[in-house]
């Protein structure tokens, strides 16, 4: 799951010179993930993993890193 999310983020949303050095805990918002990017990412996740992520939960705690995103998805997959 994390690999798919990671690939989408670095192929479509954010430019990072060395993505392999970007850890799953590094801050995506500081790296440039903007509002349009977050929306695209959520749509991608919903389609890929068959979950619905409620609008009210779109906050920095849930989207700030790849690990945070994974946790958020798993809470709704359960």
């Amino acid at each position, binding site marked *: 799951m994390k690999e798919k999310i990671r690939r989408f983020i670095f192929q*479509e*949303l*954010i*430019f*990072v010179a060395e993505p392999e050095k970007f850890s799953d805990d590094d801050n995506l918002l500081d*790296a*440039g*993930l*903007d*509002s*349009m*990017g*977050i*929306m*695209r990412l959520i*749509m991608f996740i919903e389609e890929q993993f068959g979950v619905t992520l409620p*609008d*009210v939960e*779109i*906050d*920095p705690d849930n*989207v700030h890193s790849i690990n945070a995103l994974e946790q958020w998805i798993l809470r709704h997959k359960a």
Partner: protein
Amino acid sequence: MNKSTIIQPLNPCDYFTLAMDEEIRKEGMPGSLCGFAIELKQCPDIAALKERVAEFSQRFPLILASLQQHKNRFYWCQRESEPQIFFQHKCPEAENEAQFQQSVIETLINEQQSREQLAPLTFHLLYGETKTVFFLRWIHPICDAVGIGLIFQYLCTDNKEQRQLFDTPKSEPLINLQLKKYSLWQKIKLFAKAHRYISSVDKLRSIIQAQPLPPQRLKLSVYKLTEEQTQTVAVLARQATGLTGTSLYYIGCLMRALEKMNPNQTGDAYCVPYAFNLRKQKAMSPLLGNQVGALFAQAPRDLLDNREALFSHLKQQNAEVIRQQLDYAFLPVMWAASWLSLEKHGENLRNSYTHHTERSSCLFSNVSLSDLSSQKLFGCEITGFFHLCQLSSPPGLALLTCHYQQQLTLSYNFIEPLFDKAWIEQLHGFMLQELLAE
């Protein structure tokens, strides 16, 4: 036009901005000129700045090119002699510096020159005893606002090796890369989807607050919110439209403020087009060319009374656009439209299919320059920033917002006599009330 002088053809997104340039010129105005005004704490070393600008133009000679037409297509072409691109404007001692700077900026943005003659990008240093502004003026087909931000960052970068990283990796226009991802049938489906979307937007007649008068001159009113006000706006925006909708909050507030100005104006809805950038965030490539798509925020008049309902509607509309990939659906439309005459292209961009009247109630753009917060221009601190653009009439009104160092700046660009300064001042009063939910 001599074909051997061609440096580069325009990309489909460039045509989109060129069609608007033609629309503005048809009205007797200067075309799609835009500007970035960067306020500096001190005056930089002028010789060093001039040298860096020259270095930039050697590396990116496109900014010295002439825009020329061959049959129905347009190209950036070499000129016989290089245009001047760096200018100094010193405030005379007896003059008020703020007024001098505003007057120079308004003169530059209203300068009439043919497309062929105009230098696509020029750099202006406006300075006096206490105030310095570095002003970049460009014609839209050369570049979009994010690209201009990158160019400014290039000029701020003292390390030569770091400067080499700009515009790398080399990339073709992003619209072409995105379109290559789709098969012919997918492109046709996207085209049809975009057409249906526009038709649905066009069912409602847009409310236009401009006076029905011929345009004369672009004017500018810039308001900077305090840090405290900016913080309040950020909290309210987060509550109203969430982490993903700050621009939608500004647009919703603007719709309500416009409605307060004249609730009896004819029309069914406010329709505000805005651009989204195809570049990845933090990407340094492509530097030049337009890498944008267009979207619309539209709200029917009967929603405007209720803030909560309005923001919820705008947010849902935006989510639906992304869910249905309507943002990318416009790309094949932009490609197809680039083969139309500029006149036909402009007509399609501006006029409602249903009502044959102007589609845009006003224009909106939000630029974030967070990457500049740690930058200096030859050691000079950047204290503020605003941007401006020429526009067609109607709508004759654009709100360009910018968030820089805990301060929100609202730059109202308006065409006289369709609007006047007093009207804009009143509009800003309402806008402030809306932004602060007072």
